[in-house]
């Protein structure tokens, strides 16, 4: 199997799975009915993406593990999502800022991945891009609304930006996996993607009247399976049925 490709697919799939999980926690508890629908819809998109990605990853791995086994039956240290997506929902500001920071990364990434030399990845990217654009539009609009809304919402949005900023550097994590896949034109360089991310974030936060934190020490670890203490609790729920009833079909 292509170990690098498999590893890369886990990153993509886990990011989608875990942010989808976090969004789904809002279900029935959103601040407005319309937003309950929007967040559930985004969660659904992400679970859909995770499914397609894990199905391909299972094919690449070719050991008999299927998409569900990848999603539900790995140990915590084997998950490859960035720390950003596993951070708790806290309130709607934290949730939407987290979403925005992630969407602003995912959009240029999928745009570039459309040109992947791996046709499966190109197809996944193309299919996911449309919904990702919608997500980014939606989360940007909320960041602006909250930032430029009331004093209270501005404060909460600024707190969210300040709190989550430390996790954004990891979006652009690269190691030998990336180098190898870039050499084969499977994945793009993250440099222009980071530039676009930076531009989107600067534009939106500026319009939202929010200040952009100074770069400080950045958190990372998720891409190499070193997570925050939050992931363990996510997995306890996510995996419960598969763990408690091993080997059953649902």
């Amino acid at each position, binding site marked *: 199997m292509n170990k690098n490709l498999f590893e890369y697919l886990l990153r993509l799939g886990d990011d989608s799975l875990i942010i989808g*999980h976090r969004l*789904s*926690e809002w*279900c*029935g*508890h*959103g*601040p*407005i*009915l*319309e*937003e*309950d*629908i929007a967040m*559930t*819809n985004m*969660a*659904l998109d992400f*679970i*859909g993406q*995770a*499914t397609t990605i*894990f199905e391909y990853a299972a094919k690449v791995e070719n050991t008999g593990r299927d*998409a*569900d086994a990848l*999603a*539900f039956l790995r140990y915590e240290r084997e998950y490859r999502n960035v720390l950003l997506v596993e951070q708790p929902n806290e*309130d*709607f500001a934290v949730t939407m800022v987290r979403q925005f920071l992630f969407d602003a990364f995912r959009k240029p990434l999928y745009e570039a991945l459309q040109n992947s030399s791996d046709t499966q990845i190109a197809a996944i990217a193309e299919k996911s891009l449309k919904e990702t654009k919608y997500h980014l539009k939606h989360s940007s609009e909320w960041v*602006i*609304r*909250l930032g*430029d*809304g*009331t004093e*209270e*919402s501005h404060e*909460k949005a600024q707190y969210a930006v300040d709190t989550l900023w430390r996790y954004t550097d990891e979006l652009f994590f690269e190691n030998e996996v990336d180098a190898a896949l870039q050499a084969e034109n499977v994945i793009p360089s993250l440099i222009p993607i980071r530039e676009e991310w930076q531009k989107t974030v600067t534009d939106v936060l500026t319009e939202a009247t929010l200040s952009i934190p100074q770069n400080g020490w950045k958190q990372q670890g998720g891409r190499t399976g070193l997570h925050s203490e939050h992931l363990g609790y*996510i997995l306890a*729920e*996510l995996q*419960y*049925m*598969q763990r408690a*009833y091993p080997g*059953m*079909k*649902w």
Partner: protein
Amino acid sequence: MKENNIEELERQFQEKIDNDIKIEPRDWMPDAYRDTLIRQISQHAHSEIVGMLPEGNWITRAPNLRRKAVLLAKVQDEAGHGLYLYSAAETLGADREETIDDLHSGKAKYSSIFNYPTLSWADMGAIGWLVDGAAIMNQVPLCRCSYGPYARAMVRVCKEESFHQRQGFEIMTTLANGTPEQKAMAQDALNRFWWPALMMFGPNDAESKHTEQSMRWKIKRQTNDELRQQFVDITVPQAEMIGLTIPDADLKFNTETGHYEFGEINWDEFWQVVKGNGPCNKDRVDARRKAKENGMWVREAAAAYAEKRANRNKEKRA
């Protein structure tokens, strides 16, 4: 003279109804008709919204990716139904936020079935199969309801509900054909949801105070007991087909009538749950109230931003 006038309007109104002509928002209608509809439609809307909670409870624990996606889509549909229905109620002059406040204060009701907890994955099957099944039974006749916006909302709702019902039955089928643990889980869910599902059709006709008038207005087109019987007749063979047992020792098929006869419903439990004493009444209303309270600042921010934007546009135009 005015008296006469109203009588005439009422006559014309009833004539339309009798001729199956839809009543539309701007048409004249008796206050009691309007009030009954507002009550019924908002109750229905609340049921969709509160109904998100018991199923939402299993999204993060759904057993595989496909089931998780289907469940998310289902709960999203329910929120959507809530939206259409609140809109339908608004065509009658009801204010959405006031309507919702009535839910939180306990003044407005919602379907009591959602006051039962979801204790296992099989409950996602049982709810789809039985609860959506019973809901469809109640709602299909409403597609021919005399009030246009409600009837049209119902057409869309019923289409999606019947999809949900099939998905629920598919979950139950998979479990019933699965391992002994899975079959037990399915049977347990059926045991817990069967009687509450029968209660969804409301009190026996003899006890049902609104039925007669609602039938004349074609807001209701079949009686509680008729609908309940239909549900039982359709559902019992489905349970048999997948090898599950309806938890009713008195259940038997009457070959003469062609109907299943079933045991006595525990009406004491029914009224207790309606009164707020079900296992989850407090949790459900608390969850919705909290969602509204915690979302207050978000709605205020959205409103403040919209106003700022409108002002800026005005300035630009000036």
